[in-house]
């Protein structure tokens, strides 16, 4: 089955992308599969200047999930453009840049730096990182800020689609989804991590130096599905779903509730070829459940009467 889709003007050969922060700059995974077999990759979050990130320990494994407080460690947007991007097969692989900044103006500036980069297919805007003191989740919880950031990025993004990545750590995800749409976003991605915590009773310490981190992995999948379902029904722009996807069946669940594409995040840590396998197997799963086409399957959830 042909599983190609159009997402906010992006032509994707399949709806399987890799999530920011879990796939490096893509090059790290070349030895585990053909990058070009993916629908796209979303690279590690980028800021205007390099960031060191948070102190160690930064990760903790939890039942069916993991907590992270990396803190957007990255080499800065210039190094990405000069050293990482040229090594990626961006002519045949959509590369989405993930943007992190501390206010709307800085988001706009960062979008402006990337707007002219031919190798960047779209901008994903991180308004929802729980692991940084400046900005971070504060944006993601304030609909007015989400609109402002979307406007600032859209204004400077040239012709690149702008996708706002939303936080699940809110009372009503639909309000945030609409706020992004009102700001001119071309699409949404959700969910970012859930705010969480783990402690060590022997040492009586938190397991993360940052104390609180972001929960991801299979544990968050029901929350992610619910958020995607609600967001899809609240806005007209397309939605990318992510949160706990490790198999093609998981990916199909997100498509069923209305996501037009999905991202594999923590699933890449179960095995470095997870995303490649999901991309390879999705069409078989859709055939197995007797979908006529991917377009017919997306959003075809039958609700109880």
């Amino acid at each position: 089955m042909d599983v190609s889709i159009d997402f906010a003007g992006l032509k994707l050969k399949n709806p399987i992308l890799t999530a920011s922060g879990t796939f490096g700059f893509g090059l790290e995974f070349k030895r585990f599969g053909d990058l070009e077999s993916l629908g796209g990759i979303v690279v590690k979050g980028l800021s205007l200047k390099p960031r060191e990130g948070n102190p160690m320990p930064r990760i903790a494994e939890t039942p069916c999930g993991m907590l992270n407080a990396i803190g957007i460690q990255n080499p800065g947007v210039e190094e990405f453009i000069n050293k990482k991007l040229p090594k990626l097969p961006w002519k045949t692989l959509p590369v989405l840049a993930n943007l992190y900044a501390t206010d709307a103006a800085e988001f706009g500036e960062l979008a402006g730096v990337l707007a002219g980069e031919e190798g960047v297919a779209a901008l994903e805007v991180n308004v929802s990182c729980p692991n940084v003191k400046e900005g971070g989740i504060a944006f993601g919880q304030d609909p007015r800020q989400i609109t402002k950031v979307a406007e600032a990025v859209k204004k400077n993004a040239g012709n690149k689609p702008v996708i706002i990545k939303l936080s699940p750590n809110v009372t009503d995800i639909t309000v945030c989804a609409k706020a992004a749409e009102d700001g001119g976003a071309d699409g949404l991605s959700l969910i970012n991590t859930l705010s969480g915590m783990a402690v060590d009773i022997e040492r009586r310490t938190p397991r993360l130096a940052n104390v609180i981190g972001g929960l991801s992995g299979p544990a968050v999948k029901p929350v992610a599905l619910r958020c995607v379902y609600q967001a899809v029904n609240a806005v007209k722009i397309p939605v990318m779903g992510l949160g706990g996807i490790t198999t093609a069946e998981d990916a199909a669940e997100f498509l069923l509730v209305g996501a037009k594409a999905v991202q594999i995040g923590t699933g890449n840590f179960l095995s470095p070829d997870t995303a490649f396998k999901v991309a390879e197997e999705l069409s078989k799963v859709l055939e197995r459940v007797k979908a006529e086409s991917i377009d017919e399957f997306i959003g075809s959830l039958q609700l109880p009467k």
Partner: protein
Amino acid sequence: MSANNCRAVKVISNKPLGLSSPGEEIVELKLEYPDWKPGWRAGQFVMIRPISWPLDLVWGRPFSICNADETSLTILFQVVGRGTARLLELKEGDEVNIWGPLGNFFSKPQNRPVLMLAGGMGIAPFCGYVDSHPQPENLKLFFAHRPPLENYPYKGISGKVDVEDIRETKPTDIPAIIARVEELVKEYADNDGLIVACGPTPFLKTIWNAANKYGADAELSLENRMACGVGACLGCVCKDGDDHHTQVCTTGPVFKANNLSLEG
């Protein structure tokens, strides 16, 4: 490096060494050789996640390569948490996913004396190091350990190179270990030797401090919690010599002492 460098291999054997008592086992896990081309180098590591693991164990686990030949790959582990407790349950014929070899490796200089400093499980990479070194007569091992020697793959090394060991049975033994490590580091620094080290962080800190003090050429293999092992998650960073975060999995696990900061 060929693609698809993640594959399933079968367990050949999985058994505690020596007379380890339950709960304190040092276990030798032998797997089918994953047919790595062009091969592996001592100091590199692998990520292992058994096929049978359910989703409650999300990450693979990193292990230093103890040794490998054309038919088998050997790692050592000690039961310290949920993952290693489950590894202990593996039986002959079970399948594990394995990706590697990962990271960099120890140098093997020609015509220079090499001191291997191993603390506890840090002995693992030196089995392969000794077997693959072109001049084992230049090697000396200093091994600091808690469980009895029989619980480690020690015989394979002790028959081939000059060895010295010291057992820590109580906290008051530690100053003697530190003193001897410092003495040896100075001796090898004075004689233009190379020091290669692996072990728990306090042990490595002692070596790092001594290497800085005496200007020794030292390579330290770090271990850290990892989610991916391939440089993507940035969960395993340490501080480099310029005090910047750098990944243990891809910049290391073996670092030159002068490119590393173990302060704090």
